[in-house]
């Protein structure tokens, strides 16, 4: 290399850059290769094989039998599959929609200049996110215990409400699981909104105040439109997270699971690792993949419109 340098600097810079170019190409490919290698083995191949396996009947040990679309027919005719789709969507909406709304309000409060000890509130609200999902699911399983002495049931009894068998009731299960999601992720989303709000210049609020805008008008016409990229991000990530819900129901209702709380991923897990129906489990994985695409697209479409319409309104 030093030899090249002597030659190249005065007369032929092209030669040096060329050989450096070659070196860059080689090291470039070398440096990025670990990802592609890992992705080939643990990403691309398994995904391709999932699509393949979805057309076969296989118990994991014996021969694979080609069954065409039969796996899809089986799961689409299984009421439990549709139940799992329904549960996933209901829990997803119940767990995330209130969370995002409260998150925005909370961030707005934390962003207000009048509030003291902000960092203390920030830490308190963020703390649940540091807790692992399993720990959250266990703590809430005990909070929402079926027994009379469970804390939530005790509180309800003050209002004269009979104890609820949370793990076996249609709405009880969904409320408990949504509460876990809400509690763990509220702080995370609040902090993201807060970061977005801190980027909004204060002049805008001042100017609107001079124009006589109320607090609600400020939120709706300044904060929300300018926060749109952040809202899109949180809606996108929470949607995907909600559709992949697994640990919470799997822990709350125990290993066997129950129809009230079964989600698509729990259904997939049970098909594969409890029943050894790897074909139908793969078909479920593919159905989930398309479900995620469809719901994310719908969600992004509507969230995008929400931002636009309020922008139009502010003009």
């Amino acid at each position: 290399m030093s030899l090249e340098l002597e030659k190249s600097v005065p007369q032929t810079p092209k030669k040096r850059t060329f050989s450096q170019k070659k070196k860059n190409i080689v090291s470039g490919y070398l440096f990025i290769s670990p990802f592609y290698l890992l992705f080939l083995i643990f990403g691309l191949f398994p995904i391709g094989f999932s699509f393949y396996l979805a057309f076969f009947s296989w118990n994991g040990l014996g021969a694979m039998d080609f069954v065409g679309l039969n796996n899809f027919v089986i799961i689409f005719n299984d009421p439990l599959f549709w139940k799992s789709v329904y549960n996933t969507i209901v829990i997803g909406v119940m767990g995330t929609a209130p969370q995002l709304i409260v998150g925005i309000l909370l961030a707005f409060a934390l962003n207000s200049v009048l509030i003291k000890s902000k960092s203390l509130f920030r830490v308190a609200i963020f703390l649940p996110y540091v807790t692992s999902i399993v720990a959250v699911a266990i703590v809430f399983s005990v909070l929402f215990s079926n027994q009379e002495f469970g804390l939530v049931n005790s509180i309800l009894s003050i209002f004269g409400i009979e104890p609820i068998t949370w793990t076996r009731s249609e709405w009880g299960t969904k409320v408990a699981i949504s509460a876990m999601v809400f509690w763990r992720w509220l702080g995370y989303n609040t902090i993201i909104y807060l970061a977005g709000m801190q980027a909004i210049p204060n002049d805008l609020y001042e100017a609107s105040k001079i124009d006589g805008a109320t607090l609600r008008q400020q939120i709706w016409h300044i904060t929300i439109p300018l926060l749109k990229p952040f809202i899109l991000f949180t809606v996108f990530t929470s949607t995907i997270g909600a559709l992949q819900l697994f640990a919470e129901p799997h822990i709350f209702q125990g290993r066997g699971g129950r129809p009230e709380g079964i989600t698509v991923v729990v259904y997939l897990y049970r098909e594969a690792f409890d029943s050894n129906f790897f074909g139908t489990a793969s078909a479920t994985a593919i159905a989930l993949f398309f479900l995620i695409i469809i719901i994310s697209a719908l969600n992004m479409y509507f969230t995008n419109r929400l931002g636009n319409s309020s922008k139009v309104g502010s003009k």
Partner: protein
Amino acid sequence: MKQNKNEEIGIKKFSLSKLLVYTMLIGISLVSLFPFYWMFVMATNSNNMINKTPPVVIPGPFFKENFEKVLDSIPFFGSMLNSLIVASSVTLGVIVLCSLAGFAFAKLEFPGRNILFLFILGTMMIPPQLGLIPQYFIITELGWLSQLKAVIIPGLMNAFGIFWMRQYIASGVHDEIIEAARIDGCSNFRIYWNIVIPMVLPAFATLGIIVFMTIWGDYMWPLVVLQDQSMHTIQVALRSLMDDRVRDYGMILSGTFWATVPLIIVFLLFNRLFIKSITDGAVKS
């Protein structure tokens, strides 16, 4: 002084709305903190005391006994160690591999660079469950079932990390420095090792925290591939506390408490860095 400032740039000036905001913040903070307190209350009470109406709301004397029951029931410290090994190895590996790839994407010219980078971004859209079943069989074929590397090796594949490091290196490391090092005869790897790494340590902290937290809390994949009890991560081990037909809540929450405390302490010590890391990681993507 504070008062004057409020007059000028305050969003709300009425003390009623201020009161409302404080009430909301304090209320939500209590909701956030209560489960931790309650976890401690349960962890210090015997099952007999818990199974009473009205429920216990103050800490009891069974702190030690409950944890001893946890130790009888699961290999608690072994599982914590497994989690620590897995999360640390993945974090370290991801930091090195992703910064190396990020450096290549940010500073080295090679054919197909943009397409290859877009491809990596695209892989972030794939739900992890899509390949779950074949992944399980690959791990079986490799003979890695119930070995920690079954979690560590696939964990090294981190598209977000590459994206994150590329963005940071592209703006944080100037081309002149790299050019100067080249004139001094540095190879690309040497440039990465001696020049890029010292300059991107803040990005390492952010990525490291995010990766560590994700791997530490991961549940489904370790549950699938780490089947021997001795190889459980703490998350899988905690869940098995729930298996008994008659649940000993004091014991269960004692385990959960002790598995949660270390992370909480680390978070409280570095809460600014933590919160900043999580926000940056989310916002900048």
